């Protein structure tokens, strides 16, 4: 139902969004790696003044098992204020929650009681296959034409993966987004520069190369994704492809600058075949073309093979495995999750082509098993993974599980879920909030975090 005034969580510019009220609850996707019980969206109390701070205070279970809830998003966000696609009287109210394995899409209403959200619609995989020809749903973004959903495969589980659109009011599947796909085949993440009419997409692989875990032959053969694709956002047309090179595998998370006048952004590459390092690349405008530059390289750490999982034993080193990154609303700090070593690193990216490290914490990690002041067992497994930043940039939340089939390849003794929070210094620097540690209930592993009213990877803006 349309409202009379714009949704109060919409902001014209990232500067204004940074002044939003503090979040009091977080929604966290949680999945059962054994696919025996339903996955869930958990509600975590993140209000430090609350008696239930740092506790799960609500949960909505999915109606089926085996969805593998992964990334999710809002039905509407600040892009509704854009001048060329204005529709600000829709509410940021519904979470759009896809199953990566099931290809099922759940619409969850958070409004009547934000701590007890409820499912109002489930879109069947067959409907998505019929209307959009896609499966393996991955990332959600609210944008100019409604809700954009990307999918890692076509309806039969093969390439190409791509993007389809959903109506943000009725949640009807509107169809495939691409008009001209060009050479793009693999899919992973997508986002855009609204001010530059450009969409960017990245690459993982087809379901047969990840649903049973990473395949060493595919990885060593450089057959996983390593390219960025640039698209005309309005004409829905592929315009440019950039290959990061044969050694770079798993080109994952895309974080464009929030300021819509800026034409640069960051992408994380999980692993280099040369030395197991991870890297961060900046894309930027170079004349009439897009260009990329590797701006951060995080080296692998030598380690005792006895402490390493089989997949890493022969290398005698822990790969950092940069599996997620996030950019603060003021485009100043980039947070980099090193799921292998257990580091969460903060970089000052005020100069996007010359980042400087400004903070680092370590928790979990394949070898280090670093603990948290509030953890009871003294040795945590898993590592920093899905990371989310509050709109004001003062608080950073993250969880420790990557993907059901890949978790045991790097953490063979299993992953016990946790979620932590960092406090950010005024001029950088990060430290654990010693009072915030969610010891995740057994049976589920936590993945992506979304914050009440929006966060640093949910909204895009049209005004500087």
């Amino acid at each position, binding site marked *: 139902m349309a409202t*009379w005034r714009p949704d109060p969580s919409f902001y014209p510019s990232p500067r*204004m969004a940074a002044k939003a009220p503090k979040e009091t609850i977080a929604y966290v996707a949680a999945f059962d790696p054994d696919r025996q019980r339903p996955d869930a969206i958990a509600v975590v109390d993140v209000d430090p003044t609350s008696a239930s701070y740092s506790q799960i205070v609500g949960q909505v279970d999915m109606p089926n098992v085996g969805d593998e809830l992964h990334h999710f998003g809002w039905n509407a966000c600040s892009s509704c*204020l854009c001048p*060329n696609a204005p529709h600000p009287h829709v509410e940021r109210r519904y979470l759009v929650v896809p199953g990566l394995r099931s290809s099922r899409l759940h619409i969850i209403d958070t409004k009547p009681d934000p701590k007890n959200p409820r499912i109002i619609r489930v879109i069947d995989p067959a409907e998505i296959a019929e209307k959009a020809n896609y499966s393996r749903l991955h990332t959600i973004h609210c944008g100019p034409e409604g809700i954009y959903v990307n999918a890692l495969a076509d309806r039969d589980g093969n390439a190409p993966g791509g993007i389809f659109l959903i109506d943000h009011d009725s949640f009807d599947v509107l169809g495939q987004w691409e008009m001209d796909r060009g050479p793009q085949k693999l899919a992973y993440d997508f986002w855009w520069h609204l001010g530059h009419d450009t969409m960017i997409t990245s690459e993982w692989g087809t379901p047969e190369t990840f649903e049973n875990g990473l395949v060493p032959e595919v990885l060593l053969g450089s057959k996983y994704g390593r390219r960025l694709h640039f698209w005309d956002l309005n004409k829905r047309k592929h315009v440019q492809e950039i290959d990061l090179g044969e050694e770079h595998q798993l080109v994952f998370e895309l974080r464009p600058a929030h300021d819509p006048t800026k034409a640069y952004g960051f992408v994380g590459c999980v692993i280099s075949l040369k030395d197991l390092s991870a890297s961060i690349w900046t894309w930027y405008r170079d004349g009439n073309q897009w260009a990329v530059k590797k701006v951060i390289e995080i080296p692998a750490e030598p380690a005792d093979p006895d402490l390493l999982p089989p997949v890493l034993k022969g290398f005698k080193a822990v790969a950092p495995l940069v599996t997620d990154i996030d950019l603060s609303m003021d485009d100043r700090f980039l947070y980099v999750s090193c799921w292998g070593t257990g580091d969460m690193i903060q970089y000052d990216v005020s100069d996007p082509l010359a980042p400087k490290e400004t903070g680092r914490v370590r928790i979990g990690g394949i070898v280090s098993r670093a603990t948290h002041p509030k953890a009871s067992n003294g040795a945590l497994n898993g590592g920093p993974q899905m990371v989310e930043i509050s709109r004001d940039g003062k608080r950073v939340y993250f969880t420790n599980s990557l993907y059901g089939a890949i978790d045991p390849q790097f953490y063979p003794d299993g992953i016990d879920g946790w979620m932590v929070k960092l406090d950010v210094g005024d001029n950088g620097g990060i430290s654990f909030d010693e009072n915030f540690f969610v010891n995740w209930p057994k049976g589920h592993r936590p993945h992506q975090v979304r914050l009440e009213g929006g966060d640093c990877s949910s909204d895009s803006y*049209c005004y500087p």
Partner: protein
Amino acid sequence: MTDLWPWLSLAGLGAFHGINPAMGWLFAVALGLHRQSSRIVWLSLLPIAAGHAAAIAVVLAVFVAFGTVVDLRSLKLFAAALILGLAGYYAFYGHRHRVRVGMRTGMAGLALWSFLMATGHGAGLMLMPAVLGLCLADPSTTIPLGSSLPISVAAVALHTAATLAVTAAVAFAIVEWLGLGVLRTAWINFDLIWTLALVATGVILVVV
């Protein structure tokens, strides 16, 4: 005095169209901010006004042409049906379609955007009661082409001038005075008001 009312309503509708963010001032402001130039704000208003004027002119031309062969009553009912149909469409599917003109557009793209937005919203149809009233007093005959052409041109000119004046005034107020924060609070639901205005126009054409 009765002769003045249609002209006043044309100007009033111009002000109404001008104040609607979706008709152009918001785009002008956004482009000015993007390119860090208040000059771009003012320059953008010209293609926006031109596109709006063209959209109005096309609708009026079509109706005046039909009016030379069809009696006024039939013409009014036809216009009313179109408008009420459009209002119904807006009520149910208003957000479904967008004009795919991006933030990097040039002045020609902006004019095209404005033309398509005004046409799609039925801006020209909204003027029909006033223009038909001006073109002909006797509803039992057809529109005389000779006298209606200059009237229609004057109607387009007055409406566009009013639209442009209000568009420029709002853009000026936002850029120089209010700031973008006003979008969060003062942007009332113009889609709803617009739909109601279309319904009102359709009803007027049927009953008057």
